[in-house]
């Protein structure tokens, strides 16, 4: 077993130190941890997987919390184009669309009430700000992303919105 992990470590080091070539369309995969804010200044822990290729990014995030019989689970998918408007190329902006899924479950273990589950979906825009540093094939990444959603058709006309903000750091690889 020890030799297996030694082999894995050797392969990982060999992969990292090999000079970057034009590989699979410059794909970056970055698993990340996140602090999620749902417009109430209360931070919740979340996880995500960010992927970037040829100036585009597809990121998926998940977070949730349990309190008493209530279980909340949320997922946010953002799709957008990333570009660097400044001479400082490590800083990129992302803009595009986002899709949100929010599930709330009422799970009664001891009480007589029936369990209940609701899932809502919403679509909106997204703005992302990303700093990344490439160390050979290793990608160190920090980002600040927001999905902004109109509060229904009537509310959206009067600029009423809801927002999910994700501040994250990640360590990934360039394929």
């Amino acid at each position, binding site marked *: 077993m020890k030799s297996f992990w030694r082999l894995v470590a050797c392969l990982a080091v060999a992969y990292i130190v090999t000079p970057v070539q034009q590989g699979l369309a410059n794909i970056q995969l970055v698993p990340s941890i996140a602090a999620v804010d749902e417009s109430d*200044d209360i931070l919740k822990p979340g996880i995500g997987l960010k992927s970037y290729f040829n100036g585009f990014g597809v990121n998926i995030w998940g977070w949730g919390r349990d309190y008493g019989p209530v279980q909340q689970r949320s997922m946010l998918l953002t799709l957008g184009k990333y570009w660097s408007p400044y001479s400082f190329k490590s800083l990129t902006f992302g803009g595009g669309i986002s899709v949100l899924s929010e599930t709330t479950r009422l799970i009664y273990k001891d009480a007589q009430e029936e369990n209940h589950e609701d899932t809502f979906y919403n679509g909106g825009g997204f703005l992302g700000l990303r700093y990344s540093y490439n160390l050979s094939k290793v990608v160190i990444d920090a980002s600040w992303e927001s999905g902004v959603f109109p509060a229904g058709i009537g*509310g959206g006309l*009067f600029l*009423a919105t809801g927002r999910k*903000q994700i501040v994250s750091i990640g360590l990934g690889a360039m394929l």
Partner: protein
Amino acid sequence: MRIVTLLYFWVTLILLSSSSPSYSTGMTLNVGPLSGGQGGSNPLSIPPLNFAEYQFIYTTSQNSEFVVGVIPGIFYGIRSSEKSPVYVSVGGGLVIDLNGVGVGIMSSVGANLFCAKVCFNMEYRQALAPSSGTLLSPYALRIGASTFW
């Protein structure tokens, strides 16, 4: 999903067909509801007489911007220099939120559309500042008018 896709293409079409503002010195006055840590924003006041919902931006020909608003705050930022109706900016300053005040960073995305002497402006601006174990993160989506000279 079909509505989101249609909306996305509609916005893209407007941005592509719109005339670009000349990027020189200018100012923007816009108005929109605030979100300062109390949940999402409520609808815009009708009539829009709430001073706190207004924001003033002064831009220079060197792509700098000075932003004054109650929420998300007072900032100095650097705008993208592309000759496009759409702009992004990043900067820092005083972040103002209903749960506190702090020094932090700001980012925004906006567009100046249908420009004659005055452009229609639409902008989303957000800020982030550490404060007593949490992050203040106010934002606002506003519409208004810009003029450049």
